[in-house]
């Protein structure tokens, strides 16, 4: 069999191959990795559209409702419950009964079908965060969730990554408040203890937040 020699014109094809095949492929690979590969779960600013256009700014900010009116299990359970439709209807059976924005709420109440809220603060399943433990220690809602009272639609305010958790677990003092202040949205608050010192909860209990694996993973 004769030796095969590439024809001379094939030299001209090579740049085209680079330009039209390898170039786009590389761009697609980089772009794809960029798009799909970034850690969206620690991305600050995630702000999904919710099934009800509920405004935290109106309720928590302007009306001054306490977080725990709706998120009623935050002090008792690991989970700060999203309120049952009943809770909305406590007021809204009288207030703004003809608002179109509230249609899904009324619908849910009438049909007994839950409102499918989109989860914003989503920890991985192997991390066991407990709301009640943090509130008992005097960590404010604001520390993790940001100024909810200023958000019309809630977005993720903090990275919620393990490194971020540990920063506070290693030096919790700046985030510890008086229990009366934990659900308040404040710019400043009285320091219970100085940063770097032994943190103490309001009732005098010394705080030792876990920095070992089984504190959060089990």
């Amino acid at each position, binding site marked *: 069999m004769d030796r095969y020699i590439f024809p001379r014109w094939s030299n001209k094809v090579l740049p085209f191959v680079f330009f039209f095949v390898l170039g786009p492929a590389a761009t697609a690979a980089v772009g794809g990795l960029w798009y799909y590969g*970034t850690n969206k779960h620690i991305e600050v600013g995630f702000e999904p559209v919710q099934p009800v256009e509920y405004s935290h700014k109106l309720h928590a900010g302007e009306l001054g409702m306490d977080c725990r009116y709706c998120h009623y299990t935050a002090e008792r359970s690991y989970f700060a419950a999203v309120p049952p*439709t009943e809770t909305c209807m406590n007021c809204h059976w009288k207030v703004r009964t003809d608002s179109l924005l509230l249609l899904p709420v009324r619908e*849910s109440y009438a049909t*007994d079908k839950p409102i499918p809220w989109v*989860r914003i603060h989503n920890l991985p*399943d192997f991390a066991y965060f407990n709301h009640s433990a943090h509130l008992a220690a005097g960590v404010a809602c604001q520390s993790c969730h940001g100024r909810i009272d200023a958000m019309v639609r809630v977005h993720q305010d903090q990275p919620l990554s393990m490194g971020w958790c540990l920063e506070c677990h290693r030096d919790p003092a700046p985030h510890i408040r008086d229990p009366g202040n934990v659900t308040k949205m404040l710019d400043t608050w009285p320091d219970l203890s100085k940063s770097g010192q032994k943190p103490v909860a309001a009732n005098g209990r010394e705080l030792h937040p876990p920095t070992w694996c089984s504190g959060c993973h089990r």
Partner: protein
Amino acid sequence: MKRQPYPKFEAQDGKRWWQSLRELEGSPELQAELLREFPDGAAEPPDGVSRRTFFRLAGATFAMAGIAACRRPDERILPYTKSPEEVVPGNPLYFATAIPWNGTAVGVLVESHEGRPTKIEGNPRHPESQGATNTFVQAEVLNLWDPDRSDAPAEKGTTREWDAATAALVALGRRARQTSGQGLAILTEAHRSPTTARMLAKVKEAMPNAQIYRYDPWARDHARVGAQLAFGKRLETVYDVSKARTVVALDADFLTHDAAGAVRHARGLAAGRSRLAPSEMVRLYAVESTFSVTGAMADHRVRLPARQVPAFTYALARALGVAGAPDAPLPDAAARAVAAIAKDLLQNKGKGVVIAGDKQPPAVHAFAQLINLALGNVGETVSYVQCFDDAVDGPRGIAALGKAMDAGQVLTLLILGGNPVYDAPADSGFADALSRVEAIVHLSQHRDETSNAAHWHIPRAHVLESWSDVRAQDGTVSVVQPLIAPLYMGRTDAELLSIFLGAPEKGYDLVRATLKQDGAADFEKAWRRALHDGLWAHSEYPRVDVSENRGQLAAAANDALPQGTGVELTFTPDPHAWDGRFANNAWMQELPDAMAKLTWGNVAMISPATAKRLGVVDRTESRYFVSDMIDLGENVIIPVLIAPGQADDSIALTFGQGRRGGRVGDAVGVSVARLRTTNAFFIGAAPKIVKVPGAKDRLARTQEHFQMEHRAPVREGTMADYAKDPTSARKPPEVEHRLPLISLWELGEPQWEYKGRKWALAIDLNTCTGCNACVIACVAENNILQVGAEGVRMSREMQWIRVDRYYEGPPENPRSVTQPMTCQQCENAPCEQVCPVAATNHSPEGLNDMAYNRCIGTKYCLNNCPFKVRRFNYFNYMKGEPNNAETRKAQFNPDVTIRYRGVMEKCTYCVQRINAAKIAAHRSGTEEIKDGTIMTSCQQACPPQAITFGDLNDPKSKVARLKADARSYVLLEEINVRPRTTYLARIHNPNPEMA
């Protein structure tokens, strides 16, 4: 992956502990296997695809999975629309109910997460539970979520609507009423529900000619008939072992399945074994054919074929002056034992108890009770209460039904639960006569063998879905309350009967109507109290006074003596499948049973001598445990297992395996029901015993897995030595030539000080019966997955706690000690030093933490673990049916991660419970956690309370006290890993006259 074994020291006390016959013989193959880190082929995928192909095929999936995981998953939060009372999302609720079990009921508290029952705990207020449970009660929660449960009624195998089924039932009921019940037969299980009994009475009232039968493959009639023979009335015998000093078990494994109330018996025996004084401590004699849990706890075990136990009992009766016992020959050793036991019983009048096993004929029970009466034990350690009813559970009922059916006298047959087509005795003719019945309705949780033979199959509500009631053996009534609405609209027995009567009622109303008959002054208050406490106050039966009143005893005693010779067969419920109802329960199937350490199947257990005579062997062939098969006649071909301690010429069989249907339990093991007949229901003779040439079966046995390589992990001593020197039992046999202790860390570096809490576990080998309740409790609590029979053969089983069983002595008749083995939470943990990714670390409270999401699966930690307690996920066991079925997933404990393929896992002392207790304390503004608040799952389930968890830094804690006990020791002290788990040496109390 070879390694040098750690130098081992030969024991100097002459004791040699062994786990398998191969080990006792010093098999060179076993030695070679021990040099391997992992059993040969442990990393092979199950279906024969080689590892490399597997990765090539899976490669693409891995890549895509990696990318997809980075995207934010779209997760929805679905709140309640109207919040149910008491529910705080995230916090479990507990409800008190009761689970009917083997002639009694175990009161339980069931944990429910947002309406999903996930875990069963004992109810401390209930006399049969006292806070503990057994394996089967624990596993009941998996039965609820079994994805193979029947989800709809069926007519001749075709799925039908509930309306059609109800209409058919009502029509059948109407027809039966027209003939006053002529031609109607109802077959029930051995139930103890007053409501079901009331409904059956109602049926009988409306249709006086109806016949009601009862059948249970593990019938407990003999004890009742025995009382009739001795005292002239049918009675239930209730034992209180806790007060006894001398316990004689006559073929009675009262710590697992005999004499009802195993959990209570284990607690009682533990009390006796904890009285560590020569004049106080209990002494247990077991006379039995098969090495049982009770035999392993016994101070003296007399190995005797089951059919010679009557002769033994008569000899004992005669020695104790109980007249009328026929004379029958006994082997010399047994005769000597009779004399010693009789003397011991006489010395402990009023503090002894003789327990007869349910397999033994009524005459044995009668003489056991007459001995108890003569010795003044009645009223002290034994009491009698009325029977639940007069029905007969055993084979005679179903034989009578079979005869009536065959004669064409039965037009309509209602079968409430049970699976008689599968388990009826061979000579009852039940299955064959079914074709002569016009209409058969079968109420059951699965579409099983009987459902397939029935015209109508109706789904039965699981006990955790039912409103019902149940009486414990002593009469205590518990309300059975549902944790969840019936998943498949199943009905209870009583509800079905109400439909049949044409007046459908809800179980709730039926139970309340029954309990209203009790005449409580304020019913609603009593009802609420019963739902809260788990029992109806003061409902136990009054104790019945007995006096000798022999009826047919003399004749019965002669009948009980063995007629023929040859090899006997004994039948007991399977430790995995029970009578078949747990056959589709993967937790139970994969549980290595107490003595044989067998999973996924059943065997014929034979003694080494009988095996030799039959020319059968069991051996290990290229990593598999391979057994010869024997043909016992009636098409029963079953693998043999050479069992140390088995009586010669006695073959132990378990019934309940070999079921059909269900993705887990289909064709696991061999059904031996065909060998059981009305007259040879528990003890019989084989039609033939022939080795099947060339036939072999690979058994999934764990006894040689995770070996401790005879480093004397169990320690024990005698009561006499303990009285002289309490530390004698814990002293290691090789204490003289111990190596100097070296630290893994640089010399001079101070040991870490545990300033806060210091969690520790103490396990008392003295009271541990090896019953395995801890294993199933751990599986349920910690979301441990099952690997299947092939996985177990390759040593991939994942239970975090295993119960090691050690033998000592000659293989024909050894002694045995069991040792629960779980992560020892070493302070100098060798596993932590070798993890390349720091996935396993030490917590300041002394826990050996495991961060699953960090683990990359190098398995270095397992290589370096001296106790072999780490478990590796070779595959994603959640993949594929039935594990990924939605109903199966609903059982998982939300507080524990479900581990993925390629991840190492192990015991964490139930860190989720520790954290929950700490957070609860913090919520109430304190650091204080009272001793006993935190219980590990194994501890909570343990019937004899052999496991104690607590804080060593609290000097008043029970665990600190136990650690300071004279019997306390740690494993492998010489390698200085400083385990947090300590063991308390076993003290046994041999009779000096039998030494």
